[in-house]
């Protein structure tokens, strides 16, 4: 660069030098021509001009050479500079190279480190992958185990537990039940549950037994009180009759309550009648057990009777229905009971004039008296105990009970007593027994009784609900049927004997004669 700058200044200096040399030659020529004699002037001038020319040429040559030297020097400087630059560049390049080498080494080291890391990572990855595989295998195994467990649990829930609970409910002991389920996966669980269920079952059974026993005692008390009250009602006059009847009524209601508890706890019913009970007595027996019996009107012309073993149940069920009917109709409203003899049995209809059951209650009532087994948990507050009792009795005796809205505005309950529970007394017994025809029943009654069924061994067979004497029909039946007219006849004879010593006819006189005697 410096050479390039110096170059343009060198040329003018050279030119100036050349010019000055030319001028100096010219001056020397002029001076030499002027100084030299005129003869010699032409030679001197010629020589001077030649010298000047040589001088000029030398000067020009010097100038040119100098210019060339200058250029060379510039070129040299440039070359030096280039060399320096190259050197510097080389130095830089060397340092760069060294740096690059070191960098390369460093990067190689890093690469090595990275490689080792990558290697380590790969190993880890492999390890992790193997772990994953293991874990997956474990998970699969666990899942299989869980599936097994679930299947086992499902079997436990669907088969084993219901079976165990069912057998425990049926009264088997825990050990007996669990014998079949030894060595099963959930034996401990099963044992724990079985113990709890058995404990609960024992508690329930104990509570039921206590209730049943208590109810039985109250029933027995009520029965004996009834007998004593009846005896007192006979013994005392009418001045205490009202009080006795009230006591009788209260006792009957208490007895019904005890009967209800006995029915719900599965105990035996309170009484067993040994003879068929006439429908009228059934109705009145039911009537006597409710509070508002005076609001019930009976409409029955039926002469049928209900078999003795079922009579108590029918009366009790009917009493509960009547109690419902009177409770759900306002006090002045009457409850009407109708009896109808059908081919399929005896239909007793209870109609009240109350508000009537709602659709929901109607369905609930239907369900309560349907054939479903009694569930004690359904006896929560708000459910009518009476309908549960009716349901239990209906199941026991095969009564069918249905509810319908009554045409009188309330509810009508229809109870069908199946034919096999209904006895139809012989027409002779139902016919009016006239005292004037007194010998006739004695003769006809045994004949009217059907010949008793005979077993294979030749012994008379007793029908259900009948006593043996009623079945044989020879001893007790005539005494029961015809004994009373006999007694009346004796009293008639006694009275006539009292009234006069005149001849007493062996049989009571016809009615037309007696007023004469009295007048």
């Amino acid at each position, binding site marked *: 660069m410096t050479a390039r700058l110096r170059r343009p200044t060198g040329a003018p200096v050279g030119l100036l030098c050349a010019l000055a040399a030319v001028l100096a030659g010219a001056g020397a020529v002029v001076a030499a021509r002027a100084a030299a004699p005129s003869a010699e002037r032409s030679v001197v001038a010629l020589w001077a001009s030649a010298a000047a020319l040589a001088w000029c040429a030398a000067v020009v040559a010097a100038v040119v050479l100098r210019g060339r030297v200058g250029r060379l020097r510039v070129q040299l400087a440039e070359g030096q500079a280039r060399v320096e630059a190259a050197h510097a560049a080389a130095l830089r390049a060397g340092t760069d190279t060294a740096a690059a080498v070191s960098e390369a080494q460093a990067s190689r080291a890093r690469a090595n480190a990275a490689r080792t890391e990558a290697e380590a990572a790969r190993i880890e990855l492999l390890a992790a992958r193997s772990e994953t595989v293991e874990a997956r295998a474990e998970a699969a195994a666990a899942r299989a185990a869980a599936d097994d467990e679930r299947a086992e649990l499902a079997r436990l829930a669907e088969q084993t537990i219901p079976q165990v609970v069912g057998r425990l409910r049926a009264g088997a002991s825990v050990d007996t039940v669990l014998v079949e389920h030894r060595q099963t996966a959930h034996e401990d669980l099963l044992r724990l549950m079985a113990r709890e269920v058995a404990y609960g079952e024992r508690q329930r059974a104990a509570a039921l037994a206590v209730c049943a026993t208590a109810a039985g005692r109250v029933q027995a008390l009520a029965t004996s009180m009834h007998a004593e009250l009846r005896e007192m009602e006979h013994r005392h*006059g009418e001045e205490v009759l009202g009080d006795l009847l009230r006591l009788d009524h209260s006792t009957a209601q208490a007895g019904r309550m005890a009967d209800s508890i006995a029915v719900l706890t599965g105990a035996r019913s309170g009484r067993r*009648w040994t003879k068929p009970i006439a429908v009228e007595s059934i109705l009145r027996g039911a009537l006597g057990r409710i509070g508002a019996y005076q609001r019930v009107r009976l409409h029955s012309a039926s002469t049928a009777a209900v078999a003795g073993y079922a009579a108590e149940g029918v009366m009790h069920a009917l009493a509960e229905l009547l109690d419902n009917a009177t409770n759900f109709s306002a006090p002045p409203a009457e409850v009407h009971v109708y009896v109808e003899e059908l081919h399929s049995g005896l239909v007793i209809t209870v109609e009240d004039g109350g508000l009537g059951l709602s659709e929901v209650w109607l369905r609930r009532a239907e369900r309560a008296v349907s054939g479903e087994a009694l569930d004690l948990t359904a006896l929560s507050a708000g459910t009518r105990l009476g309908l549960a009792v009716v349901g239990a009795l209906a199941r026991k005796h095969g009564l069918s009970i249905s509810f319908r809205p009554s045409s009188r505005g309330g509810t009508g309950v229809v109870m069908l007593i199946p034919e096999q529970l209904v006895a139809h007394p012989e027409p002779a017994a139902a016919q009016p027994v006239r*005292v004037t025809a007194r010998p006739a029943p004695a003769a006809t009654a045994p004949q009217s009784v059907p010949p008793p069924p005979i077993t294979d061994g030749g012994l008379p067979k007793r029908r259900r609900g009948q006593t043996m004497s009623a079945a044989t029909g020879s001893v007790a039946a005539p005494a029961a049927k015809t004994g009373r007219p006999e007694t*009346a006849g004796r009293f008639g004879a006694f009275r006539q004997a009292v009234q006069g010593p005149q001849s007493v006819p062996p049989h009571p006189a016809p009615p037309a004669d007696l007023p004469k005697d009295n007048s």
Partner: protein
Amino acid sequence: MTRVGQPARDDDPDRLYTVTGGRSQAPQHAFDVVTLIVSEDEPQPGMQSEHARILRLCARPTAVVEVAAELGLPVSVVKILLGDLLEAGRITARHPRFVPAQAKLPDLDMLKQVLHGLQKL
């Protein structure tokens, strides 16, 4: 009355208050134990069975106490039932206490013999 001495057995399901419909007082002065009852009507179907039995029994004159014995009911209850029938006009009642005084009463020996005869039965 006739049941005194029998064991206190309650072999009838219908209670007496259902027989009388809850009443315990007979109409006053209508009957005493020896009033004779005569039925004036046949029993009707659908009638209370005691009423029907009374009507059948009293087809010839019968004393109240006899009716009670026959029905196995206390006299006071029978009086209530007879009161119903009397009100409905189905029976008539005659009072033997209006028997004329000159009617001869049997002597005491006769009564004793009758009593012995009864006890032997």
